C-alpha cells in the first residue's frame, strides 16, 4: 500500500512547508460530498494522529488515515501547470468516474 508524490509535487510541498515555517507534513484524505460522491482533501498537517499511516515520498512526509487509504492506495499526487492555473492533481488508479471538476470522484 502506498501513496506517492511526483518530484514536482514534492518540490512544491517542501517549499510551501518552509514558507509556512511549521507543520509535520502533508495530509491526504477522502470525504463524502461533491457531485460524484467522494472528494479529496489536501491539507498541511501540524500533528500526527494515532491511526495515521505515514509515507515518505521524495523527502516529504505524507499522512493518510486508514479509511481514506482504502480509496487512495496507489495514488500519485502531481503538481501541474495548466495555463495560468497551477495546482495539485490526484492520479488515482481506483476511480471509476470523476466529475469534470476533478475534485470529486467515485470508486
Amino acid at each position, binding site marked *: 500500500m502506498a501513496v506517492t508524490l511526483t518530484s514536482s509535487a514534492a518540490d512544491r510541498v517542501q517549499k*510551501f512547508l518552509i514558507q509556512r515555517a511549521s507543520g509535520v507534513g502533508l495530509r491526504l484524505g477522502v470525504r463524502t460530498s461533491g457531485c460524484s460522491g467522494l472528494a479529496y482533501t*489536501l*491539507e*498541511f498537517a501540524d500533528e500526527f494522529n494515532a491511526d495515521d499511516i505515514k509515507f515518505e515520498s521524495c523527502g516529504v512526509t505524507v499522512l493518510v488515515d486508514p479509511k481514506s487509504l482504502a480509496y487512495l492506495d496507489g495514488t500519485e499526487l502531481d503538481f501541474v501547470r495548466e495555463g495560468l*492555473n497551477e*495546482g*495539485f492533481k490526484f492520479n488515482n488508479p481506483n476511480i471509476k468516474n470523476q466529475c469534470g471538476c476533478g475534485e470529486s470522484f467515485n470508486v
Partner: protein
Amino acid sequence: MALLQIFEPGMSTAPHQHRLAVGIDLGTTNSLVASVRNGVSAVINDEQGRGLLPSVARYSVDGPVEVGYGAQAKQSEDPHNTIVSVKRFMGRGLSDLQKTIDTPYRFVDAPGMVQIKTAAGVKSPVEVSADVLKTLRVRAETALGGDLVGAVITVPAYFDDAQRQATKDAAKLAGINVLRLLNEPTAAAVAYGLDNASEGVYAVYDLGGGTFDISILRLTRGVFEVLATNGDSALGGDDFDQRIYCWILEQTKLSSLGAHDVRLLLTKAREAKEALTKHPETAITAVLSTGQIVDLILTSLSFAGMTENLVNKTLSPTRKAMRDAGLGIEDIKGVVMVGGSTRMPHVRRAVGEFFLQNPLTNLDPDKVVAIGASIQANILAGNRSADEMLLLDVIPLSLGIETMGGITEKIIPRNSTIPAARAQKFTTFKDGQTAMMIHVLQGERELVSDCRSLAKFELRGIPPMVAGAARILVTFQVDADGLLSVSAREQSTDVETRVEVKPSYGLSDVEITRMLQDSYLYAQEDMAARTLREQQTEGNRLLEATESAVAESGGALLTAKELADISLAMATLRETIAGDNHRAIKMAAESLNQVTSDFAARRMDMSVRQALSGHRLEEIAASL
C-alpha cells in the same frame, strides 16, 4: 479540470466551494492582484509571467477596451483616448483638478465627479478603474480556477469618503464583491507580519512611480491607527527618469527633440535607473530618428549625486509627518519600504540614515501592498481559523454635525476603529420648532466653514414643543470600509430619518492633508472661534427672549426710562455680537440681564397672578 491547493488543517472546503479571495493594489501607475494559495501569499502573474498591470486603459471607436502594457505602449500615439493615472481623478470634481495637473484629456464637468471624453464615449474615472479591476479579476479567476467570493482593495490612507466610495463603485462595476477597503500602508505592514509583531509605532515609506506617501502607524492590540500622513503627490520614480534624461541631453548637447525621441530617451533613462540598482554602472545607447547616436556610461555614483535633491525632497514631508504625530525618531520601531522606487540603494540609505535603522526591504516593494491585502482577504473570506484576529482600520478624519452658530460637533473622532457607531443627543433651539436640519461634516476644525460638507438632510415632523424639550438622537454608523450612514430620531415620537452618505465628491489629497495640518495649526484659533460662536449664539438667544417679552408685556410693566435702558442694552449687545470679541459679548449680555432683572421678576409675578386668578384655591393646593 480544477487543480487542488493545500489547505490549512481542517479548512478543506467542499468541492466547488473554495472561497477564492484576492487582494488588489489599485495603484496610480501599476496595479496588482495577489492571493493566498497553499498557505502562501503570492502575486498572480499574467500569461507572460508579469505581475504588474500598468493602470492604463485605452478606448477606441470599435473594439474592446485595452488595458495594461498594450495600452501603455500607445500612450504617445493616442494620448486623448489612453487614460493613465486615473486614480488621481477618483472622486474629484473638475475644479479640483484644473490647478493640479496638466493632462491631454478632454474633461467633461459632471456633478460629483469629472468625466473624460474618449473615442468610445464619455468615461468616468470609476469606469476606467473598473476596466483595470476587471482585467485583474479575470486574471485571478483564470489562475485560481473559479469565481471570486470577494476582494480586499487598497486605498491611500488619506483617501476621503468620496474617493473610497468611488473605489467601491468601480469594484462593483467590475463584478467584484468588496470584502473591505484597506489602507495601503496598513496592508504593507500586514505583509511584513507587523500585525503579529509587538505593539509600537511604524513608519511606511512609499515611493512609487508618481507619488510619495509617508504614513506613521501605531499598532495596539491588532489595530493600526494612522497617526499622521504626509507626502508629495508629484514626486516619484518618473522624476528620477527625468533627471537622467536631462543628463543625457547635457552630455550629448542634443536639443529640440521630437516627441518620439523624447519618449525613447525617457524609456532608456528608466532602464538605466533600474539597472543601476544592481550594477555599479550601465550603458545608455540609442539611435535617434535624426540618425544621431547616444552612447554614454552612467555610474551609480553620479546617478546618486544628480538625484540627491529628489531623495531629500522626500525627507521634509517625512519630518512633517513625524512632527504631526508628535514623535521622535527613537519612537519608530520599524520602517517599511513600499513602491518600486525604494529599490534604489541611495533611497534606502537616506531612509536608513533618517530613521537611524535599516528599513525592511526583504519583500518586493511593488508587491507588498497587494500581498498584505490578500492576507487580509483570505481571513475575511473565512479561509483561516476564526481565532485569528481581524485587523481593524480607523477613520481618517472626524465626522460630526453642525450645531447652532456654525460650530462642528464631532460625533466620531478621527482614528476611531471601524466599524463604529456613535450616537449623540441634540435638541431644538426654538419654541415650536418642527424640523431640524442635519448637516454632516468631515474634518478636524471647530467651525463648519473650515470642515467639509458631506451631506445635509432634514428631520421633519417633530411635534411642536418648547425650545430644548425635543430629544433628537443622531446616530453615526461607519461600516468596515469607512463609509458612513447617519440617522436622526426624535425620541418621544419616534420620527426618524436616515441617509447613506454618498458624499458630494471633491476634496483633493492635498486638501485632506492640509485639513489635518490646519487642525493642529489652528487649534488655539479654533477654540477662540468656537467660544465666540457660542457667545454669539447665547447673545442672540437672549435678544430674542427679551424682544418677545417686551412685545408681550413691556407696555404694561415697564416705565419709559426702563424701556429706554433695556433698548440701549439690547443695541449694545447686538453691536458686540456683530464684532468678534467674545468677552465684550459676554459683558453686554450680562448688563442686559441686569437691566431686565426687575422686569423679569414682575413678569413672573404677573404670570403667577394670572394662573391664580383662573383657579380655585383648593386646586392650587392640590397641585402643590
